[in-house]
């Protein structure tokens, strides 16, 4: 293997990890902008009366079917079995393409039909790309209308001339921290009205200098009977005096429930909803057409449910239908972009400064409160209090993080684990105002010792083990810097390690900071695990356990449903007792979570929570304290085909009937589980 191959392998990193890193690259999202409460109901009443007097309410006849400008049917490649017979796949319903402009539907339908029939094999596009001829297409035609040949340009010109329309210019994109550019350039304050109980966070978008724009946002709203938490909405405001090429797409329009809703301001909008799909809002305004695509679920009593008519009507009230974007002055746009970049930089610096400042507060309790509030998993944080340097002041030691001390009533960072070079630092108390940071994870062996001094700790000695070359090293200065290390014998290393006397202690949950300490002395590792869970996790009283010998070795495994991984669905964690030590049962690929136990000690992991999840079933056999994949069956939602991988063979396409037969051959067992508090502690 060489570095190039490793680089390629890193390219196959799982998507969530790659996206997780991208979020860090992009910086944290800005805080939600809270809309101020509506000033006065009286004003709303006056506006409503005025609208009534001028007769603004119109009879609305718009329906999704009216907005249709085209249709597309997806083609799925056919797979064949070993005898050459086609394996049946699901047929997919046609997709309906709709106008998001309200006006100019004939023109758009003509353009869509042309593009659907033009260059079906993509050869013209490839030729244009390879020859660079697409570069000669005027920018607006190329970027806004996606023309890559003169033929397309000519057709577009023919359509706009026929229907007497203006073309849109090239659009300007805005990152999430640049939505002020969109608003500033078009002369609007936002797209939502001040509404009690609602917060809107504007995200990224783009606009055309003529005033048409698209903008994503996250809506948080509490209406009492229902709420939504950062629900994503996508708004497109399309001016009617230009030709907008953007189409919306949806499945069968007849399957949507549609109705007209007249808002408090007298404007009637079309609302559409369908279970398992986006909720939709459309407003046909005099100068523009506004369409909103919304997350199709809301929360009722904390449970996700499909959007209700009442909720959609209330959300429809949020949008400001009086906005009137003016054309953008492109020289101003650059100024606005520079200002937005500067503001973003300042916001990031302020966030960093806030993080640093949280180490200096008036007492450990305040620090702990901050840590708990800002941690993604506060229940996992642990601490101990010890006077490390013998000055009569206890230091607060957070496992894996840092050590704080107190001076003149204020906390300060006494020692930062991250600065030590220990890969995954674990803290260990030692006698004589000393402590150790060590790592024995994943084949990395490091043991570094520190002297606790007055206001900080200093490095004493570091011992490390090179597992690849079987060499021990010692560092006598500058921590983990490899340049300063010296090779020593295993015996010398052991002698150094033995010269420090470790002091045993138990970590305490940081959530329990300030409470009396509870001792746990059960010799049964399962009992200790359950007792610690009960002490650490608020809802552990609802966790359940079962004991069952899965691999027939006479040792019962501990199977727990502790909902630590996925709060919506109970998942199983399997652990076993290896020489009195609690050991997690994992697959070769590191899977340590299962959903069912099947007959014969088979562990199953499936993803068939609901109709939106990808059907996926994997079956594992436990051998020793490991488990091996014996079978897996899953369906590709894109094509509808079922696949099977078993016995280390390559995956194969199978029929749905065969897939269901495989799934049915593994009989799930109803677990006789009991609540954690009923475990027989000694």
């Amino acid at each position, binding site marked *: 293997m*060489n570095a190039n191959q490793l*680089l390629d392998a890193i390219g196959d*990193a799982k998507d969530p990890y790659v996206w997780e*890193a991208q979020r860090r*690259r992009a910086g944290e999202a800005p805080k939600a902008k809270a809309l101020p409460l509506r000033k006065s109901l009286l004003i709303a009443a006056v506006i409503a009366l005025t609208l009534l007097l001028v007769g603004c309410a119109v009879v609305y006849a718009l329906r999704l079917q009216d907005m249709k400008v085209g249709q597309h049917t997806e083609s799925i490649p056919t797979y064949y079995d070993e005898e050459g017979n086609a394996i049946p796949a699901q047929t997919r319903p046609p997709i309906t393409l709709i106008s998001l402009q309200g006006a100019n539907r004939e023109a758009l339908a003509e353009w869509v039909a042309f593009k659907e029939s033009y260059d079906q094999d993509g050869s013209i596009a490839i030729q244009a790309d390879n020859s660079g001829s697409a570069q000669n297409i005027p920018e607006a035609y190329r970027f806004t209308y996606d023309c890559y040949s003169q033929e397309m340009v000519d057709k577009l010109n023919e359509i706009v001339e026929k229907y007497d329309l203006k073309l849109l210019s090239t659009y300007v994109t805005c990152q999430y921290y640049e939505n002020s550019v969109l608003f500033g350039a078009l002369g609007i304050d936002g797209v939502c009205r001040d509404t009690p109980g609602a917060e809107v966070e504007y995200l990224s978008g783009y606009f055309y200098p003529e005033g048409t724009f698209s903008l994503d946002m996250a809506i948080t709203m509490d209406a009492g009977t229902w709420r939504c938490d950062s629900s994503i909405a996508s708004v497109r405001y399309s001016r009617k005096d230009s030709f907008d090429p953007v189409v*919306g797409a949806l499945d069968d329009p007849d399957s949507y429930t549609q109705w007209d809703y007249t808002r408090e301001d007298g404007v009637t909008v079309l609302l559409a909803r369908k279970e398992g799909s986006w909720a939709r809002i459309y407003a046909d305004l005099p100068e523009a057409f506004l369409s909103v695509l919304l997350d199709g679920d809301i929360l009722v009593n904390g449970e996700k449910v499909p959007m209700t008519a009442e909720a959609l009507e209330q959300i429809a009230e949020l949008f400001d239908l009086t906005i009137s974007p003016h054309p953008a002055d492109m020289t101003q746009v650059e100024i606005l972009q520079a200002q937005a970049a500067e503001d973003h930089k300042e916001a990031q610096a302020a966030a960093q400064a806030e993080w640093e400042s949280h180490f200096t507060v008036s007492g450990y309790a305040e620090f702990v409160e901050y840590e708990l509030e800002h941690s993604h998993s506060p229940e996992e944080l642990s601490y101990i209090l010890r006077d490390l340097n013998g000055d009569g002041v206890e230091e607060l030691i957070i496992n894996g993080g840092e050590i704080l001390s107190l001076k003149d009533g204020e906390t300060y960072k006494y020692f930062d684990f991250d600065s030590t070079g220990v890969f995954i630092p674990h803290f260990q108390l030692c006698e004589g105002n000393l402590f150790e940071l060590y790592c024995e994870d994943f084949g990395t062996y490091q043991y570094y010792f520190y002297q606790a001094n007055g206001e900080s700790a200093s490095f004493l000695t570091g011992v490390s083990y090179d597992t690849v070359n079987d060499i021990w090293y010692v560092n006598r200065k500058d921590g983990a810097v490899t340049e300063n290390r010296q090779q020593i014998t295993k015996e010398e290393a052991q002698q150094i390690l033995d010269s420090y006397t470790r002091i045993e202690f138990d970590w305490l949950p940081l959530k329990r900071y300030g409470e009396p300490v509870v001792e746990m002395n059960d010799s049964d590792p399962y009992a200790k695990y359950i007792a610690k869970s009960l002490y650490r996790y608020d809802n552990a009283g609802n966790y359940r356990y079962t004991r069952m010998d899965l691999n027939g070795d006479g040792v019962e495994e501990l199977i727990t449903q502790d909902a630590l991984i996925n709060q919506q669905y109970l998942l199983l964690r399997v652990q076993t007792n290896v020489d009195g030590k609690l050991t997690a049962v994992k697959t070769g690929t590191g899977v340590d979570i299962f959903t069912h136990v099947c007959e014969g000690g088979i562990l199953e992991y499936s993803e068939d929570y609901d109709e939106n999840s990808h059907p996926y079933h994997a079956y594992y056999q436990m051998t020793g304290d490991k488990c091996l994949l014996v079978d897996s069956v899953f369906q590709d939602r894109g094509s509808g085909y079922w696949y099977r991988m078993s016995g280390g063979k390559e995956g194969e396409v199978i029929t749905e009937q065969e897939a269901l037969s495989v799934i049915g051959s593994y009989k799930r067992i109803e677990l006789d589980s009991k609540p954690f508090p009923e475990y027989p502690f000694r």
Partner: protein
Amino acid sequence: MEDAQILELYFARSEQAIVETDTKYGGYCYSIAYNILVNAEDAEESVSDTYLAAWRAMPPRRPAILATFLGKITRHLSIDRWRSRSAYKRGGGEMPLALEELGECVAGGESPEQAVQRKALAAAVNRFLAALPETERSVFLCRYWYFDSLADTAEHFGFTESKVKSILHRTRKKLRAQLEKEGLL
């Protein structure tokens, strides 16, 4: 526009899918390509190639995370482009530096066993990543997936460059240990 909508456009064979993709992820893909190629023109070409590849792939593919689906294509195309270019001359940018750093993790010089080893290696890398704390995983991927410079990575995380170096050093060391343990070296 939300990813689900963009996917709908791909499946509807609406070329607006490319426009929306470019709007939302053009900068993201460009940053990946530019970090590898250090040439605006080449980077733009890689991004264009990405869109064409995405257009050909969807349908039938329906990626769970559109961004990383696109990012992976861009990364792959850009590395290929860099390799063909560096067959003639050594390019600049973060790519050669990242390669040198990763050289610590592997033995080098062995003949590749192609697809089988690559699959095993990819699985091992993912197991390795799964076991890393989030911050270290992200630092590692910013450097070796996105090819961000040390300075940029430090800025993303609010760390000093030396701290980033230290994290990367530890992570590489651990990766090497794990690959060795799994018999992949």
